[in-house]
């Protein structure tokens, strides 16, 4: 069995719940962004900038960014532990899986800091 050492919360149940809660946040935010494009089909810079300068939207965007990072991390963990297995990679499975998870963690960390910089930087 692959260990749960790199599972976000070391508990399958909390991962399961957080995956669903973050999904709800991501889904609602996605609908809002689509909504903006439907209301303003020919959106200009001023309107676009004003949307993201609104403090409520800033908080919503940062919460969504965090939700995306957590959701992505749990998703990657699920995929990696299901497919990068000893059955396919024998003794090297753990090393390969840890390497992929480290790469994924790095990518997600970059997204998190970069995203916060975009949303709250200016």
């Amino acid at each position, binding site marked *: 069995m692959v260990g749960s050492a790199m599972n976000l919360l070391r508990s399958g149940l909390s991962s399961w719940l957080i995956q*669903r809660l973050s999904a*709800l946040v991501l*889904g609602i935010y996605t609908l809002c962004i689509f909504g903006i494009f439907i209301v303003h089909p020919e959106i200009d*810079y001023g309107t*676009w*900038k004003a949307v993201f300068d609104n403090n409520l939207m800033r908080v919503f965007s940062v919460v969504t960014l965090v939700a995306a990072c957590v959701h992505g991390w749990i998703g990657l963990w699920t995929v990696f532990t299901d497919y990068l297995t000893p059955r396919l990679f024998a003794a090297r499975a753990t090393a390969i899986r840890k390497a992929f998870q480290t790469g994924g963690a790095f990518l*997600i960390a970059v997204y998190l800091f970069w995203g916060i910089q*975009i949303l709250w930087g*200016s």
Partner: protein
Amino acid sequence: MKDNRPVNLDISTIKFPLAAITSITHRITGVILLIGFGFLLYLLQLSLESESGFVLVQELLSGLIVKLLTWAVIACLIYHFIAGCKHLLMDLGIGETNEGAQIGSGLVVVFSAVGILIAGVWIW
């Protein structure tokens, strides 16, 4: 649990019902979205940076390659969103029967196809 039980690794002999295909596609689109997220963040950064950055995004989005790339990411997003909704409904106990799973998977395919087509029309 014994771990020396026989395992069938010949994938061509395994049947993949629609529910299995929509499930693996949910995973694949999820992984693609994690990569595409960087692309979306880059566009967001450019578009918010300055008026010229916003115009640059508009110009980028009028190019064929970027249009196709954007459509691909949005297609994954639409599929992942709809398959995710089905997942949440099933967590609530809706459509958990064998038949329900088949209908649910069929609906995911139909709704996604329609959504992806509309997104394509909207991008072009």
